C-alpha cells in the first residue's frame, strides 16, 4: 500500500516536471514576456508540428508592421481588444497571458474537449483551436494585404521527404517566380 502511493507520487512529480519543461519551449511567445513586456526577437511555432516542421516566426519584423493587439488581442496587462472576451475577462489573470495556446486549445479532438462541447450554450461555444488560430491569423493578414508568404511550403518545411516532394518544391518555386 505504502509503496503504491509513493509510486503514484513519483509519477505526478515526473509529469509535472515534463509539463514544466515542455510548456514554455513549445509556446510561441514565452510566458515571461507577459510580465517583463519584452517581446522576443523570434519564436519557433512548433507546438503542432506533425508532417511539417515548426515555423520560424520573425517576431521583431512583424512587430514593426502591426501593433501587438492585432495578433495577441491584447497587450500584457491590458484587457483584450476583443469585445467578446472583454465582457468577462476584463479583470483577472487572463489579461496577463499572451501565448496563443492558453486560450486556443491544442486538443480540439480529444475525447474530453469533444464531450465538453456538447450542448454548450455559453460564450466558449466557438473558440478557434490553436491550429486555426495560427493559420487564420497569419494567412488572414497575408492574403488580405497580398503581402507575405501564403503557400504551405513558404512557411513550413516538410518533415522528411514526402512522396511528391521534388514536384511540390518545383511547383512552389514556379509559383514564386510568377
Amino acid at each position, binding site marked *: 500500500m505504502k509503496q503504491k502511493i509513493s509510486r503514484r507520487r513519483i509519477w505526478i512529480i515526473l509529469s509535472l516536471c515534463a509539463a514544466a519543461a515542455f510548456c514554455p519551449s513549445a509556446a510561441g511567445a514565452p510566458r515571461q514576456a507577459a510580465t517583463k513586456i519584452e517581446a522576443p526577437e523570434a519564436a519557433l511555432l512548433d507546438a503542432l508540428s506533425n508532417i511539417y516542421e515548426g515555423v520560424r516566426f520573425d517576431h521583431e519584423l512583424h512587430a514593426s508592421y502591426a501593433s501587438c493587439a492585432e495578433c495577441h488581442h491584447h497587450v500584457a496587462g491590458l484587457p483584450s481588444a476583443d469585445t*467578446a472576451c472583454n465582457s468577462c475577462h476584463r479583470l483577472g489573470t487572463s489579461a496577463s497571458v499572451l501565448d496563443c495556446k492558453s486560450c486556443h486549445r491544442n486538443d*480540439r*479532438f480529444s*475525447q474530453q474537449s*469533444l464531450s465538453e*462541447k*456538447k*450542448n*454548450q*450554450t455559453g460564450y466558449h*461555444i*466557438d473558440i*478557434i*483551436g490553436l*491550429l*486555426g488560430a495560427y*493559420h*487564420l491569423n497569419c*494567412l488572414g493578414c497575408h*492574403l488580405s494585404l497580398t503581402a507575405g508568404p*501564403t*503557400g*504551405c*511550403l513558404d512557411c513550413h518545411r516538410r518533415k522528411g521527404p514526402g*512522396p*511528391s516532394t521534388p*514536384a*511540390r518544391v518545383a*511547383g*512552389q518555386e*514556379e*509559383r514564386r517566380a510568377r
Partner: protein
Amino acid sequence: MRAKISRRTLLKGLVAAMASTISMAPSRKSSAHDFQGYETNRGVLVDVSRCVGCRSCEVACSREHGLAPPPGLVDNYRLLDQQQQGMRRTDQNAFTVVNRHESPLLTHPLFKKTQCNHCLEPACLTACFVNAYTKTPEGAVIYDADVCVGCRTCMVACPFSIPAFKYDSAFAPQIMKCNFCFDTRLSRGRPPACVEACPMEALTFGYRNDLLRVARKRIRDTPGRYEKAVYGEFEAGGTSWLYISPVPFEQAGFDIHVPRQPILNYVKDFLAVVPMVLTIWPGLFAGIYLLARANKTHKNTNDHEDVSDETSER
C-alpha cells in the same frame, strides 16, 4: 350447385377494403413527416470564408479510404485554375473535392468543399429498394456494397449529385461515396479525417444542433461577414453538413434550387397509394372479371337459371 359469391357481398367487401386502405394511408404519411433527425446526429460546419483551397482535406480523405491520391499538386493552385471549364465533382477516386468560385462581390476567390452532406432524410436511402443505405444515429449515411444490386437509382435521387459508381471494376462494381469516416472514426466519436486535416479550421465538427448555434453565433457576432442563412439547415429536409458563406450561396457554388423538404416528400403521396394498388387492385379486378364472366356464362348456358337467380337476389 357450386358456392357462389353474390354480387352484393363482393361489392360490399371491395368497398370496405378500399375504405380501410384509404383511411390507413394518411396516418402512415404523417407519422414519418416530422422527422427532425437524431439527437446524436453529428455534423460539420463549413465556413466557406475561411477555406484557402489548400486541399489538405482531399489528401486526408484519400489516405483514410485508400483511394488514389488527388490529382495535381496539392500546394499548387493550377488544378483549381483549370476549373474554369467546369467544376470537379465527387467520383470513385475522390469522396471530396474542393472547387474554386469567383464572386463579383469579392476581390479574392472562394473555395467550396463538396462531399456527401449526410441528409437527415436521405434521398439515396429512400430511393434504394434493397436497403443498401443506412442512416446511423451518429448521422452518417453509409452504404453496404454486399446488398447493392447496382441499379444506381441513388445517383439519380441525390439532390447534390454525390454518389459515384465504380464503373471500371468489372467484377466488384459499387457505389463510392463519403461515409463520414463512419467505420474508422465517427463510430468512436472522432471527427472525420478531412476535419482533422483542415489547417484553417474551416471545418468544425460537433453535434448538428450545437453547430447550428455556432453558425448563428458567427453570423451574429461578425455582422456583414456572412450571409444570414445556414445552407443545410433546411435544404433537402436538413443535412448534417452545414455551410455559412460570405456571399449569396449561388455565387459560392451551392445549388439553391434544392427543395427545403426531404426529397421523399415528393413521392410520399404516390408511395402511400402503392400498397393499396397492390392489395386492392388484384381483388377488385379479379372480382369484376369473375362477375363479368359469371354473367356471360349464365346467359350462354341457361337463361332460365339466370332469371331465377336474379329474382331470388331481389
